Structures are given as C-alpha cells and as structure tokens.
C-alpha cells in the first residue's frame, strides 16, 4: 500500500469516511471485549448491586468442574474436527485435484452445501435424524436389520458428544475441501509432471509434493478448525441444550446459561474471558507446532 500524498483528499473527508466503520467496530466489538474483562471482576446479577470481587471469579473458574467438563468437550470437538474436517478434507481435495475423480464440480458443490446452512437449521435437522422413534438414523438401521446397533444417541452421557460431532463435521468439511482445492491448484503442474517422469505414483506425489507445499494452508485450516470449535453454540443449544445434565455442554453454552439463565453476569463474563484465553493459547500452540514444520521443508 503506497503512500499517495499528491492525490490525497482532505483530512476531513478521510475522517468522515472512516468514522462509521470505526464507530461501529468500537461500539460492538472493541469496547465489549473490554467490558467482558471488566465485568469478570464483579459479582453481579444485573441489578444495582455490583460487588467487586477481584479475581475471585477466576479462582472459582479454575476449580469449576462444569467448566472443566465443557472445556474437555470443546477439546474433543477440536480434535475430531482437526482429524475429520481438516484431515479428511485434505485427502478428498487431493483426490479432487487428481485425474482419477469424475464429476469434480458436482462433488465440490455437494460437499460445500452444508456450509451455507444456518447452524440452527443443521441442529434441528440432525436432532430429527437422531430421534429415537422417527429419526433417519434409526430408520436406516432398522431397514438394514441392524437394530442392535441402535443406541440412545442423544440421551446417553457417554455417547452424546460423539453424536454431536457428526453434524458439526458434516457442516464444515466442505469449507476445508474448498480451501485445500484452491491451495492445491496453486501448485505448479510441472512439479507433478517431473515427479511422474521419475516414476512417482499418486500416494507418493501426495506425501512428497502436495503435503509440503500446502503446509501453510494446513496450518491455517487447523487454526480455523480449532478456534471454530471453541465457538460452537447453536448446534449444542438446539440438539441437546447442553444435556443430558451437563454432558454436552461446551464453553459458549456454559457462559450463556450462567449469564442469561442463572443471571450471574460477572461469573458468565469470567467464563467468556476464560474461553477467549484458552482459544488464544490453542492458536498460539498451533502456530508453534506448525511453525517448526515449515522450516523443515524450506
């Protein structure tokens, strides 16, 4: 972005043009972040009584078992998302970019469609899919005489998180497929051709060419998936409401319930801040893990 002193309009005009964007951003993003941090130091139920309690909310947070459980659920989601969304998307994209696959445009279209749906709609749809009596899943299992495989998908504490992972992967895998396809298309054809001349087959090409040259994109995708998983809310809210009990509660869900249902705004803010911090730490960790990887291949 070069400096353009000669053609620069008056300062007043610049200011007026930037003002709406800056103002909106400050009011609805920057200041609220500060407010969230501020309120986390208080004990407050929304009325006039606001009691400053310093770091007590955070001390409680560290011991809070429900918070731990919700973070573990977030981590479970993050791991599944990285393996299934990013990992499988990578494989699919490699196939889409290879010569073997037919109907590439159709597949991209189909796999990406869930991405544009509202998370709420995805939630409701899959809630019906998992329904014990009329759900699609149980119907298919019964038709295939696999009734013994039927389980209480959303009511069993041990299974519920795994059940919820599927709609989430279903919704977002298309995004990563499209991201990887566009990254892989940028790899020059000549590299693949000379590798083919040297006798490399499909899998070797994927490991020794595609993977190193898309490592940057892989890193970004992993970070996107992980930070996305920390934000999951609508799916959980609609499909299980966080239950049974707190078995499928995730961070954002717990913050919502604490603030708006239990009316504890101070502690709810502390939970939000906690989630933000954990997200940033995870993203930083991903940067470190992948940062090293890139140097190896330079």
């Amino acid at each position, binding site marked *: *972005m070069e*400096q*353009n002193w000669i*053609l620069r309009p*008056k300062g007043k005009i610049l200011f007026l*043009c930037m003002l*709406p*964007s*800056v103002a*909106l*951003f400050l*009011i*609805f993003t920057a200041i*609220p*972040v500060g*407010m*969230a941090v501020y*309120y986390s130091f208080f004990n407050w139920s929304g009325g006039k009584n606001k009691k400053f309690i310093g770091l007590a909310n955070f001390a409680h947070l560290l011991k809070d078992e429900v918070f731990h459980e919700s973070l573990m659920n977030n981590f479970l989601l993050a791991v599944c998302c990285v393996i299934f969304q990013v990992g499988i998307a990578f494989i*699919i994209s490699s*196939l*889409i970019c290879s010569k*073997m696959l*037919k109907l590439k445009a*159709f*597949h*991209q279209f*189909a*796999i*990406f*469609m869930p991405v*544009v*749906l*509202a*998370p*709420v*709609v995805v939630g*409701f*749809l*899959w809630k019906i899919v998992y329904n014990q009596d*009329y759900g*699609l899943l149980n*119907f298919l299992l019964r038709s295939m005489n696999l009734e013994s495989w039927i389980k209480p998908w959303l009511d069993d504490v041990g299974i519920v998180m795994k059940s919820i992972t599927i709609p989430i992967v*279903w919704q977002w895998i298309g*995004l990563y497929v*499209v991201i990887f396809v*566009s*990254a892989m298309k940028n790899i020059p054809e000549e590299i693949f051709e000379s590798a083919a001349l040297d006798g490399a087959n499909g899998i070797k090409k994927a490991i020794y060419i595609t993977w190193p040259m898309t490592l940057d*994109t892989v890193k970004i995708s992993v970070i996107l998936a992980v930070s996305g998983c*920390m934000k999951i*809310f*609508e799916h959980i*809210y609609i499909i299980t409401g966080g239950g049974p009990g707190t078995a499928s509660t995730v961070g954002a869900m717990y*913050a*919502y319930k604490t603030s*708006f249902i239990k009316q504890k705004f101070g502690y709810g803010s502390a939970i*939000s*801040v906690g*989630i*933000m911090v954990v997200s*940033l730490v995870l993203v930083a960790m991903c940067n470190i893990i992948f940062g090293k990887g890139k140097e190896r291949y330079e």
Partner: protein
Amino acid sequence: MVSALMNVMIAALSVFCLFPVAWMLYSSVKDEAAFKRNIIGLPTEFHFENYAAAIKTGKMDIAFVNSVLVSVTAVAILIFIAFMAGVIFARYAFKGKMLLYTMFLSGMLIPVHSLLIPVFIELKFFSLINNRLVLALIYTAFGLPKAIFLVTTFAATIPREIEEAVIMDGGSTFDIFFKVFLPISKPVLSTVTILSFLDAWNEFPFSLILMGKPELKTLPIALTYFTGQHSVQYTPMMAGLTIATLPVVVIYFIFHKKIMEGMVAGSVKG
C-alpha cells in the same frame, strides 16, 4: 480399480452431504402419518398445508419479514461503509493507519459469543433492546473485519493510472470513489454482499438475546417455537426449516462459485 473405489467413496460423501437437505425438502410436503410410516420414502401426495401450519406455529410470516429487514439493512450499510474504509486503507496514508487496519483485522479472531453479555448490557443501558435497526447495526459491525479486508486487498490491485486520469480531468474525491473504484469493485462487493447476507440471515445468539418481543424475532429464532410445545409434528417442522433455509439454498444454487471463492479468500488470506 483404485480409481473406481475412490469415485464411489467420494460419491458416498457427496450423497451424505446432500441427502439430509433433500430429505428435509421432500419430507416437508408429506403427510405426518406417511412420514412416520416411511421416513425416507418420497412423497406420493403433496401436502402443502404443512407450510400453512408451520407459518402459524412459528409465526414465520412475521419472522421472515424481520429476517429480510434486518439482513438487507445490515448488508446495505456494511457495503457502503466497508467500501469507503477499504478504499481508503488501500490508497491513502494517515497517522495510525496500520494500527487501525490491524484493529479491524483482529476482529476476525474474537469469538463473537464472548460479546453477548457486554453488548446486551450496553443496549439494556440505553434501552435499545428489541430494536431491529440496532440488531442490523450489530450484524454490520461483525461483518466489518472480513469486508474491509476483502475490499482493501482488492482495491490495492487497481492501477493508479485510472485515478490519476480522473484527477487530471479535475475530478474530486467523490468522483474517484464512485466513478473509478465503485464500478471496478463490483466483483468484491458482490462477494461481500452474499457472504454477509448469509451470516446475517443465519445468525442466532444475538437475535435470541436481543429480540424478546415475539413480533420482532427472526427466522432462526422462530424455528425454536416448534419444539417444546405439545407433541412435535415433524412434517410441519420440516416445512418450517425449509422456509428458513430456502432463500439460502437458492442463493447457493445461483452463486455457489462466488461463495466458495469468497470464503476461501476470507479464511485463508486473512
């Protein structure tokens, strides 16, 4: 052999991604009894009264109007202000420019749910809860980082000679913006329009918290009326889901290439 296997597997995945949506669409015109008898069967008769029932239960006609009002307003404002800001970032220097730009970009990292409580408190203080214009402005604010980023990177690629020609002919800043940049930026602006419209239309948590009055609720919230009350009627619910999703699906059918390109640009290059 391997090739055939791969094709089958990917085809299975594509079907897996498409089928639930197709199932939702054709189940919505089935009779409830027919649905319960054969969950995946295609409809033999078309029961559009499910849609009437859905609209009644979920008050979807009002919700549809609300969603349209809020989404269109949010996008219209966003296009206008993000365009101006983006062009300025791309072309002109001023004190604190880098700081400001970084501030906008870092907005993409913030989990929006963390802002639920503070924004709610802000608005309650000014008695601006239950205000659709405010909700639209919130959606605009959330769309700013990505929109400004996309416009700025695009505008930076436009050659300077065009602007210089306009200046030589005595054009003002207004002319530069609207006669030079605006027509050329149509591609990036249409991408921003579609992406931010989708985000606004599908948004749930803020609408849930800030729209308490039933007549102000948007479509995603209206869907929640279907559960909890009496016994669940599945086919009207499918109809409700279809009403909420159909605009999105139609937009996707027409603009899917653009949407994919825009999302890649927004996610990867950001």
